[in-house]
């Protein structure tokens, strides 16, 4: 796990890599340097269009372009793509089910020093409520690259969630295969299963080791596709381990934790505990400090796992 790369970097690289294979255009709203669409802008200036600081217009423009048959990536920070432009995403892109791929970077609190106004912990909740929207939250740079290509190959609106901070790469680029809508069972566990998404997947893998040292056998599932959710796998691991912990860099309301709770309540009720941002706003600070302050470390997952296991009795 030595190598680290931010998923936004992988997003920018993927756009360039896939540009010859697929016909698409890229839009941004004055954040190309940060979202990393700048890589595509430099390589394919005739297929890149800056929309200026006007995210609502960008989403509806993207819908217009997509309506002519051309796939479009529309990029901004998660706060402005899902938050500011929610209604445009819902009505211009979601309702007509147009082929727009929203590349939302700087999701969650790992935005760091920019602080609460720019740390979006609500985007998954917002996007989940849009019928027909596919939501992918890649766990590392390898998965992010694969997700971009799958989005291009799959007709319809996508919300691709990327992070700002460099994070460990744990998938093997050579062997990795991305299956849309399928959770990845990274480890089986008898006592509890940690169902994680995004940057919390590598934290979950660390937590598994910590738990093993204390005699608790924890499984780990990577949910890269939050919608449609792999409810079958979630029910299966819940049944096998009898307890579930969810882990996400997002509000515990409306995100993975809520989606898993809904799935478990309907299919296989077992004790569960949610690890995530606890219905509050972020703060300026360095990433490791924030992860600790907001309870998003492997130690927090360990604690939650023990609570979940205790609830089984």
């Amino acid at each position: 796990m030595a190598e680290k790369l931010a998923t936004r970097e992988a997003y920018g690289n993927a756009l360039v890599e896939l540009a010859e294979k697929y016909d698409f255009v890229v839009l941004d709203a004055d954040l190309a340097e940060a979202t990393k669409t700048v890589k595509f802008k430099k390589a394919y200036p005739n297929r890149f269009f800056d929309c200026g600081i006007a995210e609502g217009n960008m989403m509806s423009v993207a819908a217009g372009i997509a309506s002519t048959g051309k796939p479009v990536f529309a990029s901004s920070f998660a706060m402005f793509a899902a938050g500011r432009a929610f209604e445009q995403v819902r009505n211009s892109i979601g309702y007509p089910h147009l082929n727009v791929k929203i590349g939302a970077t700087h999701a969650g609190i790992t935005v760091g020093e920019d602080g609460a106004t720019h740390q979006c912990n609500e985007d998954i909740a917002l996007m989940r409520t849009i019928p027909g929207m596919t939501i992918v939250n890649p766990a590392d740079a390898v998965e992010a690259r694969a997700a971009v290509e799958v989005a291009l190959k799959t007709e319809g609106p996508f919300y691709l969630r990327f992070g700002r901070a460099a994070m460990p790469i744990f998938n093997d680029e050579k062997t990795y295969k991305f299956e849309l809508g399928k959770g990845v069972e990274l480890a089986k566990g008898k006592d509890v299963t940690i169902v994680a998404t995004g940057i919390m997947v590598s934290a979950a893998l660390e937590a598994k080791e910590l738990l093993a040292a204390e005699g608790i056998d924890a499984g780990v599932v990577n949910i890269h596709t939050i919608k449609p959710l792999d409810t079958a796998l979630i029910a299966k691991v819940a049944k096998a381990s009898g307890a579930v912990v969810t882990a996400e860099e997002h509000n515990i309301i409306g995100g993975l934790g809520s989606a898993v709770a809904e799935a478990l309540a309907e299919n296989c009720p077992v004790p569960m505990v949610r690890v995530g941002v606890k219905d509050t706003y972020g703060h300026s600070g360095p990433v490791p400090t924030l992860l600790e302050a907001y309870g998003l470390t492997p130690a927090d997952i360990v604690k939650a796992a023990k609570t979940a296991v205790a609830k089984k009795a």
Partner: protein
Amino acid sequence: MEAKKLQSLQKTANRVRIGVIEGTHAAKSGHPGGSLSVTDILTYLYFEEMNVDPKNPKWEDRDRFVLSKGHCAPALYAVLAERGFFPVEELLTLRKYPSRLQGHPDMNSTPGVDMSAGSLGLGISAAAGMALAAKIDGKSYRVYTVVGDGESEEGQVWEACMFAAHYKLDNLCVVVDWNGLQIDGPVAEVMNPTPHDKKLEAFGFHVISIDGNDMEQIAAAFEEAKTVKGKPTAIIAKTVKGKGVSFMENQVKWHGSAPNDEQYAQALAELKGGN
């Protein structure tokens, strides 16, 4: 314009107005006022200006139209039906479940509708996106959109205008249906967007001001728009809300209410008398 052509267009517009009244009466709701104000513009677009094929509504090289003021769908549906995209009788299913003629246009269910619209401010951006796509692909189709005067209070309309001028979308023609009334009252009293022409000029548009219920002025404006290079064109079309039905003309209350049986009979008598 030849007298014969003018007369034919006016007759078609009159049939479209009848369709608006038939549809909103049957639906017992809807937006007749703005539908009647924009009727002449839509009639000219679909019967003279735009290169479309009712037998192949998704033809990729067609000219495109976005009704950004989507609540005036009754007029768009009536024009599309007259033009042969679907049967005129279907106008009586307006706003009913499970009719494909919803309260606001749905591109995935109604033949001839190029973009779902109705949430104000979004359609003009989508039209700009289509115009940009034509430029990217080196296609010659043109894109038309109609926004309302009240709709122009939405900030996104101006974001779209900035975008259209920045990318020199001379294949985009924005018509402002300036009927002067919105739900809460006269546009000038609710939130005045004037001077609309100067604002659009400042945003980089070629601006043409016309009487939007005069077929010859409409024709001349669209012809002029096609000669403009390097910038988008805006046609500020001064219209009469409720045009063609005496008791609806210039009355705020007819923005969003349907005629009852008595009003329906009177409206049809007036329109059929003029056909």
